[in-house]
């Protein structure tokens, strides 16, 4: 296991967005987190990375076979400990070049960021890491362009590239396909499968074809709680999951 939560809960006013979730992610596993609208998936991500503080419960990360408590740590600390995320809505550095977008992320994991007296060009290793990642995600050709000038699909690739910098142990991918046109969706799917080779991945995705194809395991959230957890075939036939997705409305007699 690489990541686990215990009794993780977040309340907004009276609303329980994430409700007592015990979750674990295996080392090297690709686990998908699914659930209907408003099930609490993005809130769950925000709790893992420290963007939100939980109302109750803990988040722990396995660092060199030691469980480290991440609960309540700010995002910059969870990131440096090896928990990275991509965003549902593209969230990059718009007027920087593609290469700089990844380089600055790589730099965050070194010990040189405070050096204001040396030229950035004397730190080759961050450029090398950035170039390797861009090569891997297939953006080498546009490395010198500004991020804002990319096509939407390329921006989604860049989104993942930034998360890859600094070689994280766990990748949290929040709808990497959001807004990608049906024509170019395969590129992103291939990319997800590729990065899952050497990272533990937690994926939020709505396209069930993709989820069923790529996942080792699927966890289903509904109204903040886990309602199912298992391999794809099992989830497909789970009656509670069907209910959660299609809705269980029955016309009452009362008016």
């Amino acid at each position, binding site marked *: 296991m690489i990541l686990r939560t215990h009794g993780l809960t977040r309340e907004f006013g009276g609303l329980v967005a994430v409700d007592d979730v015990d979750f674990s992610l295996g080392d090297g596993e690709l686990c998908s987190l699914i659930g209907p609208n408003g099930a609490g998936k993005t809130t769950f991500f925000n709790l893992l990375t420290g963007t939100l503080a939980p109302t109750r419960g803990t988040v722990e990360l396995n660092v060199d076979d030691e469980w480290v408590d991440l609960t309540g740590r700010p995002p910059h600390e969870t990131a440096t400990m090896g928990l990275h995320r991509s965003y549902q809505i*593209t969230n990059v550095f718009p007027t920087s070049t593609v290469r700089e977008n990844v380089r600055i992320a790589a730099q965050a994991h070194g010990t040189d960021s405070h050096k204001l007296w040396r030229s950035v060009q004397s730190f080759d290793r961050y450029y090398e890491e950035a170039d390797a990642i861009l090569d891997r995600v297939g953006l080498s050709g546009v490395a010198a362009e500004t991020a804002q000038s990319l096509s939407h699909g390329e921006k989604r690739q860049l989104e993942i590239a930034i998360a890859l910098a600094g070689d994280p142990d766990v990748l949290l991918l929040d709808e990497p396909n959001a807004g990608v046109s*049906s024509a170019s969706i395969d590129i992103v799917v291939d990319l997800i499968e590729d990065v899952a080779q050497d990272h533990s991945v937690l994926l939020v995705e709505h396209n*069930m074809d993709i989820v069923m194809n790529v996942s080792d395991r699927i966890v289903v959230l509904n109204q903040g709680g886990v309602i199912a957890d298992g391999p794809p075939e099992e989830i497909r036939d789970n009656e509670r999951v069907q209910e959660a*997705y299609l809705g269980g*409305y029955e016309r009452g007699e009362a008016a």
Partner: protein
Amino acid sequence: MTLLEVDDVHTYYGQSHILEGVSLTVEAGETVALIGRNGVGKTTTLRTILQLTAPRRGSVRIRGEDVTGLGTHDVARRGLGWIPEDRRMFSELSVEENLRIAVKDTDRVGGKLAHAFEVFPDLEQFRDKKAGALSGGQQQMVAIARGLVGDNDLLLVDEPSEGLAPLIVETVAESLRRVSSDTSLLLVEQNFPLAMDLADRFYLLDNGQVVEQGSTDDVSREDEQIRRHLSA
């Protein structure tokens, strides 16, 4: 005459292509459901109709008149009401003010309010309360009542059941049914049985396109297409 015609609209947020050519129609008196999984473009379709997010291609016509590119308030003045996701109450305003502001015919505010409290008698007791202080279900009632008092011919209803307990969902469904006797509805709803129960026809959206449409009488949740596009 057809009340609403959406003709091959393509809508983008920045560079991200959300609607890839959506077409649909709503006839007077009809309730039409727009169903589909999260993120397929249902809310964007409603926003496009209201010109809150104008389409790059394609057109929106109301009673045959092209409204593409008009200001949202101009579109609304042509008889369109919006009951948005999350209800969007003016939380600092009282319930009465929330309704008052929605009345388009300013000479008949009193009558319209009286009618609203007649249709939603439960709201009368909260008349002077701030809308922000109401529960989710009560707010949903105010949102629907807001659509009612505007003398609208067509209400665009977005996820009315979201975040509500099952019992409350039933009350909301009942009020929508009541409202639908006066106006047409274009209803975005994830709860499949609820949508089928309220609507006469449906459009199924996936990846910014209409993948299936038809009468609600002919489909069930065991339908292969429906399961493929809606469930896990």
